[in-house]
Every structure is written in C-alpha cells, then in structure tokens.
C-alpha cells in the first residue's frame, strides 16, 4: 500500500490526528512530548471524571468505528453501572476492506492513542484497557508495546498516574485475522478467549462487557480525538466539521486516484472534493465509474451521486454511509460484477456462521455472482439475487450479514445493465 498520502500536503486544517507524523521518530514519547503531547492528560486529571464526559458531550464526538454512536452517551452508561472493575477497549481491528485510517495513528502516533485512552479510562473509572489489534498489523504491535512501556516508565500509565493515585493499565491483544472481531461484542468474545461471534444485545457491553463487567469499546480514531477535546475544550471542538458530526476525520482513499492515502479533513468534506481536490482526481485522466465511500460494505455510488458531505448524518440521506471513511474509487476499466463478487467472497469467508441468513446467504449470493461474472449466469439470476438478499436484509444477527445483502442490492440498483449484459452476452467484456 502506498504511503504517499500519509504526508498530507493540504493545509486547510490544523492536523490533530496526523500531527507530527512527518517526523520519522513520531512514535517516540519524547518527540510526542516535544510536539505538545501528554499535556492534556495532566489537565484532565485535575478535573472530575464527570466533567470530562461533559466536555466530550459538548464536543459532540461520534464514534469513528463505523456506526457514529455518540461517545459521551456510551461513556455515561458505563460509568453509571456500579459493577467494578470497568474496562476500556480500543477497537484497532481495522478489518473493513479499504480501511487503513487507524494505521497511521497506531504506527506513527501511538502516544496520541495512549494519552486518549488514559484520559478516557479516568473519565469512565476504568482501570484496565486493551487495544484489540488487527492480526495483520504486526509492526503496530511492536510500536504500541514500545510506546506503552515508555508511557508506563514516564508515569502516564500504571498504578499511580502522574502521582495522582489513578490507575490505568494498558495491554495489546492481537486478533487472529477475523473481520467479525471488529464488531464490538465479537471482539469481546475473542478477547475472552472464545470464538469471535457477536453476542446478544441487550445486555450491552456498557453493562455486561468483557469478563461480564461494564465495558466501553471505542475505535482508535475516536479515542485519539480525546486529548484534543481536552486541549481546546468541547465547545471549540464542536465548531470543526459539521454541526451534527463535529471534529476532524480521517478519510482513507484507495483505488484509481492520483494520490491515494489517508487524509485528515474536517468531518463533512464533500466526497467529490476528496476525490478530485485532495486526491488529484482519477488516475491517468480516466473516467470515474463508481465509488464505495465508507468501506466495502457501504452502498456503492455512481459518479453522479458523489456530491455528498461525508459524515454520519448526511451520507444516509445520499444513499450510502460514512462507515469507516474508506473511499474506494473505481474507474471505467473495472468490472463491477467482479467487484461485487469479490466483496461477497470476502463476506462469505468472514461470516462467522452464527446466523442462518448470513451463513447460508453470503455463500449463495457469491455463487450466483460467480457464475454471472464468469458468463454462466442465467435468466432470472438478478431477480434471484435480489430475492435472496431481501431474505437476508434486516434478518441477520449482526450488521455483517445485512451489509452483504446491501452490497448486492446497491450494485444491482446502480449498475443493473452491467449485470444483464454479463448474462445476455454470456461473458465479461472487461476480461
């Protein structure tokens, strides 16, 4: 994967999450401190935990893992639960295809995350934290472990943080490569040593989470916003981005653009601007064919539907979702039936198997897509796919299965002629 975009050249906003990452030693605690790091933690410890939650509430911070759930609300539930101890889990599973936005934080700015977790832990009354790290990020594991050790040595973590008698321990747990373990309850199961499968909700993790204790699960990017909120205050933070979804956002752009990479931009940046202004447009001047705006399971958009503000509230109004902010850009050379097939193949492989519609439906859809793509599709296959995905949609245990159904439905919705052509001509013209 190209790192080009990591070095963001656009200065329209002060970098918060990617601050200082041009510095080759940015992961070192001293560099982090030099750049102003670990100044929010002492400030936070001067205040009451409740005030911190209040500040996050004012900031209007929403979770960056995909669902956009208000962070302060989740924290309030967990901190209100009398059970003890409480846990803070950082979701660093980053498994959604096309997503690589958490990676620069994990690898280049780990102390930002650690500082964010230490503050969040204090706010919640959690004494233990885990970073559940994607199995395919071995480098990040070493970097995080080194950073955690440094933070411990410097009194930012441990039994007596900054001499204030506050306790917060942090450890990295590496997953084994299952996408479903990014779903928060499957993550918890996995962390407990069980097979990664989602749990029944309610009870929600905020009440009965890991080891049956109150647990908050937040995404890497979410937690990395916390030091900045403490630094500038919730009110000031809420002025960044859109009113419903304030703050900076990492967009990771891949595919046929001139400059793919991770871009830190205000929440709500228009998708077309991300592609054409920030990423330099379509590679080689080719024609844009389709964009998946928020990771492989979010609804695909045709070129005429990309004038939408990329945030949690506006994207659904424009027929898609912000998801993880992973923008996948496809030019005219791409066979969309094949793309759809590849996504379903991924989801079939990653289906945990707990619920019937997803376990059986993903495979069935992949089967049909496979034959259509290879020119062996038959009359009625498109309607069959719509019917099968309809039988899945809204009936699965967790969003993965719905996502699979939605992928098929949206590809057919926007690009039906391309599917029909495959069947009619009994071949794929992109081959």
């Amino acid at each position, binding site marked *: 994967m190209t790192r080009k975009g990591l070095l963001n050249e656009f200065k329209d906003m002060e970098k918060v999450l990617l601050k200082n990452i041009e510095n080759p030693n940015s992961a070192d605690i001293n560099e982090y401190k030099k750049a102003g790091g670990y100044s929010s933690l002492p400030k936070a410890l001067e205040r009451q935990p409740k005030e911190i939650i209040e500040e996050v509430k004012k900031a209007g911070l929403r979770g960056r893992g995909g669902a956009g759930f208000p962070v302060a609300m989740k924290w309030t539930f967990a901190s209100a639960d009398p059970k003890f101890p409480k846990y803070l889990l950082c979701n660093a599973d980053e498994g959604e295809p096309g997503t690589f936005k958490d990676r620069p934080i994990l690898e280049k700015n780990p102390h930002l995350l650690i500082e964010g977790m230490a503050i969040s832990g204090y706010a919640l009354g959690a004494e233990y934290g885990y970073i559940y790290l994607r199995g395919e990020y071995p480098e990040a594991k070493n970097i995080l472990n080194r950073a955690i050790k440094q933070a411990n040595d410097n009194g930012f973590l441990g039994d007596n943080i900054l001499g204030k008698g506050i306790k917060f321990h942090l450890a990295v747990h590496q997953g084994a490569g*299952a996408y*479903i373990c990014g779903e928060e309850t499957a993550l918890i199961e996995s962390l407990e040593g069980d*097979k990664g499968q989602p749990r*029944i909700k*309610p009870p929600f993790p905020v009440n009965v989470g890991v080891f049956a204790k109150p647990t908050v699960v937040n995404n890497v990017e979410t937690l990395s916003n916390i030091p900045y909120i403490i630094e500038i205050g919730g009110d000031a933070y809420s002025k960044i981005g859109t009113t419903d979804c304030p703050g900076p956002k990492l967009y990771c752009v891949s595919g046929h653009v001139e400059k793919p990479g991770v871009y830190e931009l205000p929440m709500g940046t228009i998708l077309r601007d991300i592609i054409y202004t920030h990423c330099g447009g379509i590679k080689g001047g080719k024609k844009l064919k389709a964009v998946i705006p928020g990771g492989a399971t979010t609804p695909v958009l045709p070129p005429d539907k990309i004038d939408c503000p990329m945030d949690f509230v506006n994207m659904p109004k424009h027929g898609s979702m912000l998801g993880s902010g992973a923008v996948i850009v496809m030019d005219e050379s791409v066979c969309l039936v094949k793309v759809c097939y590849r996504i379903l193949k991924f989801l*079939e*492989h*990653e*289906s*945990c*198997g*707990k*619920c*019937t*519609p997803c*376990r*059986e*439906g*993903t*495979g*069935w859809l992949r*089967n049909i897509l496979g034959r259509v793509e290879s020119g062996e599709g038959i009359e009625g296959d498109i309607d*069959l796919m719509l*019917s099968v995905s*309809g*039988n899945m949609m*809204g*009936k*699965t*245990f967790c969003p993965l299965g719905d996502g699979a159904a939605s992928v098929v439905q949206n590809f057919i919705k926007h690009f039906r002629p391309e599917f029909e052509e495959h069947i009619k001509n009994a071949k794929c013209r992109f081959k």
Partner: protein
Amino acid sequence: MTIQDKTMITININGNEIKLEKPVTVLEAARSAGIKIPTLCYHEQLEKYGGCRLCLVEVEKIPRLQTACTLMVTDGMVVRTETPQIADVRRGILEFLLINHPLDCPYCDKAGECELQDLVEKYGPAKGRYKEKKRKAPESLEDPVIVRNMERCIMCTRCVRMCEGVQGASAIAVIDRGGHSHVEPFSGGKYDCEYCGNCVSVCPVGAIMSRLHRHSYRPWQVKEKTETICPYCGVGCTVVAQVRDDSIKRVIPKIGSPVNNGMLCSRGRFGYEFVGSSERLTSPMIKKNGVLEQATWEEAISLTAKRLGEIKNKYGGSSIAGIASPRCTNEDNYVFQKFMRIALGTNNIDSAARTGYAGTQTFIENIFGQGATANIIAGLSNSDSVLVIGGDPTTINPILGLQIRACSRKGGNILAIGHIKGLEKFNPLTVSPRFYTETVLLEGLVSALKNKKGLSGSIPVLEAKIKDINTSAKEVENRCGIAEKDFIRFTDTLSESLTPAIVLGKDIVQSSGGSYKLMLISAINYLMNARIYLLCERANEQGLLDMGCAPDLLPGYRPLAFAEFRKRYENAWKSPISEKPGLSIFEMVDSAKSNALKAMYIMGENPVFNLPNSKAVTAALKNVDFIVVQDIFLTETGKLADVVFPALSWAEKDGTFTNMERRIQRLRKAVNREGMEDWRIISEVSKNMGVKLNYSGAEEIFQEISRISPLHRDLTYEEIEKGDAIYPYKGEPLRGVMEDIQMHKGSSVNPDGKLYLRLERPLFHSGTLSTKAPALVKIYPEAVASISPSIGEALSLKSGDMVKVSTRTGSLELPVNIDNKLDNLSVMLTNNFENKGAFSLMEYTIDPVTKAPVIDANEVKLEKSVRLDSEVRA
C-alpha cells in the same frame, strides 16, 4: 395501583393481552398463551442464542424484526407473529437452511421427529431455487456410540451449549466458521467425552445421533413409551423407554422430571442393552453332581422350599441368611425380608449397602436425626458452597454432579478434599492431604470452624467430641503437607458460606478410622449448619434399607431393638419376629467360613464379586450347604448356587425405587418377558413352605407397606406417580436421643515408598450390570490399572502395556493406563469386569461402628509383563 399490579407486565401478541408476573422473553410469553412461534436454536434447557432467526416477529415501535427467543418483554409491548411479512421471513430462513441440507429424510433416523422436517412441512418453501452443489460432509462413524452427519447440521449450536453450559463437559465445539462451520469433539473423530448423550437429545435434526438404534426403527414405530426410573444409580433419573416388539430401542430423558429434568448420564442413556442380552438366564437351574442343569420352575421351587425347610428345622433359622438387592424394587425387598423373618424365622438379612452407604447413613442420622441425609438433589445448585469429600460425584452420581457444576456456574464455591477429576474444570478450591493424614486435615477443619463459628449447644454429645479436637493450621501443614495459607483460605471460604452442602462419598467410610472421620465430618456439618448428601451407587440402596433389609431394621427404618415396633409387625404379619439381631453381610461370610451358616438366599446380588476379598468370600460360600440365587445373569455367585432362578429385570416389572434423596418413584414395566418378578419367586417358595405371602401384584405389596410402615403411612401409587412421595411422605421419621457417639480411630499407616490398590468408581460402569451393556463396554472396554506417569516411568510402562498387579491375595494381568492426575502411591482399578475386579485383590477389616469394610491399606506390587496377542481385544 396495588404493589402487585406494578410488577405485572402486559404484552399484546396478535391482539391477545397477556399478563405476566415477571419479565420473560416474547417467546415464553407467547407459549404461555398457547401462541406458537417456530424456533430451532431455542431450547428451554439452554442459554439463549438467537442464531437461527426463525422466530423473528414484528414488534411495534421497533423498526427491525426481533427474535422472540431473545427479546425480553417490556410493559405495553405489541407483537405480531403471524403476518404476511413474517410468513415470508420463515420461508426464507427455511430455504437458507435447506440449500445445503442433503434432504435425505428417507434414510435419516431422525425423520418423523425432526424439527426441521416438521417446520418445512408447515412453513417451508415450495420448491428449491438453489442450483449449486451442496456442501458435502461424509457421515462420521469414528465413534462407537455417537454418529455424526454434519451435512444435516443446521448450526443451531444446541449441542455445544448443552455440552458446555449444562453438562459442563465442554467436549465439543463449532469448528471453522461461516458455511464451513461444523460440530466436532475436541478429541477429533472419536468423542472421548462423558458420553452423556445430552447433546444428542437436544439436536433438532439428524446431525448427531446414537448409534445404538441406528437404522433399526422409525420414531413413529415406537408406540410404547414407558416412563420409568433408570436402573443404575441412586439418583433415580426419570427415563422414557421406547420399545418396539418388546425390545428397548432407545432410552431418553424427560424435560420437567423432578430429579434429572431432561438430562441423563451415559449409563442411563446408553446402558439399557443388558435387558435384551442373550446371556440372560431363561430357565431355573439346579445343581446336579456339581453342574448346574436346566430345571422346571416347579422342580426348582419345591427343591428350594424343601431344603430350606429341612435346614431350618435342623439348625434353626439363624443358620440361614438372605442378601437383598439394591437393584430390586421396594416391593421385592419388602417381600424378601418378610420371607426371611416369618418363613425362615431369622433377622439374618443384609445387603451390599453394608459396604458403606448403610453404615454412613446410620452414623450421621444417629447424630442429626432420621432423614438428615434426605436432601433434594436439585437444591445443591442453589448452595453457595459445596464441600466434596470421599469420591467423585460426577462419576458416582453423575446427575447430582451436574448440580455441583451448576452451583459453580451460579457463583458458588466448590471445595474439595483431594483431587476430583470431574470438577476440575469448575475451579474447585482443593486441599490434598498426604496419604493417611486425612484425619488430621478433618480435625484441623473442625478446630478452625469451631473457633470461627462457636458452639450452639444444640447437640451436646457431638459438642463434647468437638471440644476435644484442637489441631492447628501449622499441624495440618506439617502433617498433611497443605500450606497454612491454603488451609486458611479453605476454612475461610467454608466458614463464610451461608447455605453450604457437603457431598460425601464412600471412600471415607471404607478407610481406616472411617467412623472417627464420619464424626469429624458430622462435626463440620454441624458447625457449618450444612446439608449433607451421601453418594449412593445403586438405584434402590436406600429403598432396601427402608424396606427393612437390614439385620437390625424393620420396614420403615424402624429399629428391631424396640419391642414396640416388633409387636407392630408381628401383629400385622400374624407371626413372631425374632428379637435377636441378624448377621451383617460380612458376619454372614464369617459365619459361612466357620460352617455355622447352612443356607443362603441371595436375591439380585453378587457377593462373590461385590464384596472385597472375593477369594475368601468364595471359599466361605463353598462351605454353605444350600445356596439359592435369583438373578438376571449367571454371576460368579450364581455359579456357586444349588438353585438358580432367572429373574425379571428392571425393565420387565412394576414397582417402586427410593432414590438417595428418598423420593419414591414408580418403576414401570416396559418390556414383556416370560418369568417371574423376584418377589413372586419368593412368594412361590414361601407358599411351598407353608407360609402364605400372596399378592396379586406390586401395588398390593405397596399397599401393605403403606398400611404397616409408619414411614410410608397411607402412601399410594397414585401419589407416587404424581411426584408427591418426598421424604418424610406422610409418615414419621424416628427421633431418638443418642447417649454417646461410638467411633473408632483405626490404625495409622505409614506409606513409605509403597503402592496401594484403590478402587476406581468409573462413570461408565456400575457393578457388573453395565458390562452386559455393549455400548458402555465400547466406551470403557476392559479393566485397566491406572497409575501416575512417574510410577509408569519407574517401571518403564506406558499406556497399553501389560502389568502384573499383585497383592497378598492374588494377582491380575492388566493393561496399564497412565493418568497424569494420579498420585504416586495409588494403583487404581475398577470392580466391574468379570475376573478382573479390584475386590479380588483386596483384603478388608471391619470398622466396628459402621460395620463397613476398610480397604484402604492393600499394598500392591507392579511388574511389567507381556501381553499375549490372543489377549488383545479385537
């Protein structure tokens, strides 16, 4: 609004208002109102799962469809379960379940009782739209008892949740994920688990099934379904025997039954095949010139009556002894003791309960009052701590063991003295004293609890003993090798418990100083205010005692010593009863040895095998002039008999059993077989001796019992069948005042560098009966000598090697089993397999108080030997 109204919840399902007292799921609410919602992954015994999605319903104000099996009802909820949308959903889900399903119903044993088949018939899609190849998974016949057909699996995980969450064996798991998911034992193809088969009972389809009845019948062909009681152990599980053409095809549990609520152990589920064994005795036999020959019933009965009469006349009734059976019904045992007492004029009647259960019960109930050990099994799981001593409950009384596991799951503390294998996954707090220092540990516990809890004054005789006991934690550390801090943690946990229970196995009473240890355990029980459970190996061990099959007890557990009770029975039976207490089973052996005993009547027991020191018992029995044996198989004891009667087995007769909690339950005839019940044979013999013991059937016998026994007063079969026969019924337990506690400290053993033979009480066997059940034999095929890895290493033995196991009384060649949970002093051997029983190598002494055999000091030698090819089982 009254307080009660506040806690009531109302839910509207399909227009019906349903009022509920406590929060339940939508599914439970619907079922309570008779509204059917189809389900597959839901099972009332299991934790909620929500995976199959078949039970999706519409709920007002919730945009997404909801699974009825997981959604908790909230007040005012409005639910619809039968809408066109829901019908589509069900059809869709069933279609998904079928696309990879082989649809081999014509071949599948489950057809006819398959939940998937039934649902598809009702809600399923009309025709298939899936054109691709189905997933393939070959039938797995790697296991001797359980067959897997993973193509049929619908991934409901009911089996896994059963195995892990209820059975507590955690032997199987869903392997792989997505469409590749399948259920597999951790051990691979063969199960190597507890073989309870409870996973089989909850599987909704034909994916995991018992091999015992494979392709032998269709569910709809078993018209006869008889609810009866498991013949094996003292738990007394309700079982349903499914019969076709007078052959048991399958034994299954019943959800809602009081003792086992839908669960069974391997013996109960897979151990029934002995009933149809070709080795069953079919005709009476009489010994002629040292050889048993077939005879008619008339010949055998009249010969028996004649010989017993002669011997009685010549030597008196006290020269005759009877052994009763814990495998026979209350009715059989009642008639037997009555026969011994009035036809033969002797109290010489006892049973193998004397090997521990009887003595332990008497000892404890003398202190705490009759019925002190009659505690409800299901209540164990609600204890906040369970102390386990003297045996592994999960193998001796497996269903009781499940309650201990459930207790742990609910957050209770499991405390164990010595390693308890079946509880090791449940994080027991264990203290393991060095060999022969258990007494010191128990004294230490009594001392510690005395100091923490103080004495209440309610049982002075026991307190007098407790006052004398002062063993410090330091002493326990020095002598038992238990670190002081571990001991303190153990006693702290015990003393903090509010609703403790003690589960006591036979190893205690069968060890040196058994009665003294029982006093110490009684003291612990007293100081903790605990309930005590006595593990009980045979189905009707309790019942035979209640029926008066003991040398010093009359029916109703009434002491013979009290003239008042004798009078009562004399009046009822219109016959005098000897006031002289009879011989215990071991005294019978001694009496036989000294030629004093002239005749024995043995009903459904195999003393030659089931008493320690078989060689001596055999020699003694050979001295007896006339032996009658009633049994279903020709046992080692039967071979010594002069007359052998074939008896009807548990499945072939009516009657009652009394379980370890003293619940009386109905045994029902499931299979027709020619022959007579044990009581009927006895009554025929008695009639021939001129003493009428006539009954039309088991119920009439029970009516007599309930007429005369003060304990069973007014009890009827009808009440028993309703499940109302819970101790003390409508009767009166006896409350006596004890003057002093008799006990015996035993001799101490110094185990320096020696090995000792110990009795293994296995899960898969019970007496020799289970060795006639092929399925159980497949699971546990032969007697093995289990030793620790370091003993193995010292003798360069590995599992499967042959070893010669010798004691002072003899030796056996046995295959070795290396068990890394064993200590370095013990050689473990079962007493189940013919000619390979541990008792054949054991000598015993008798504890003067409990009259139980002490068998814990049998030194043993091991020598490596070579296994001949001809001995290797195919």
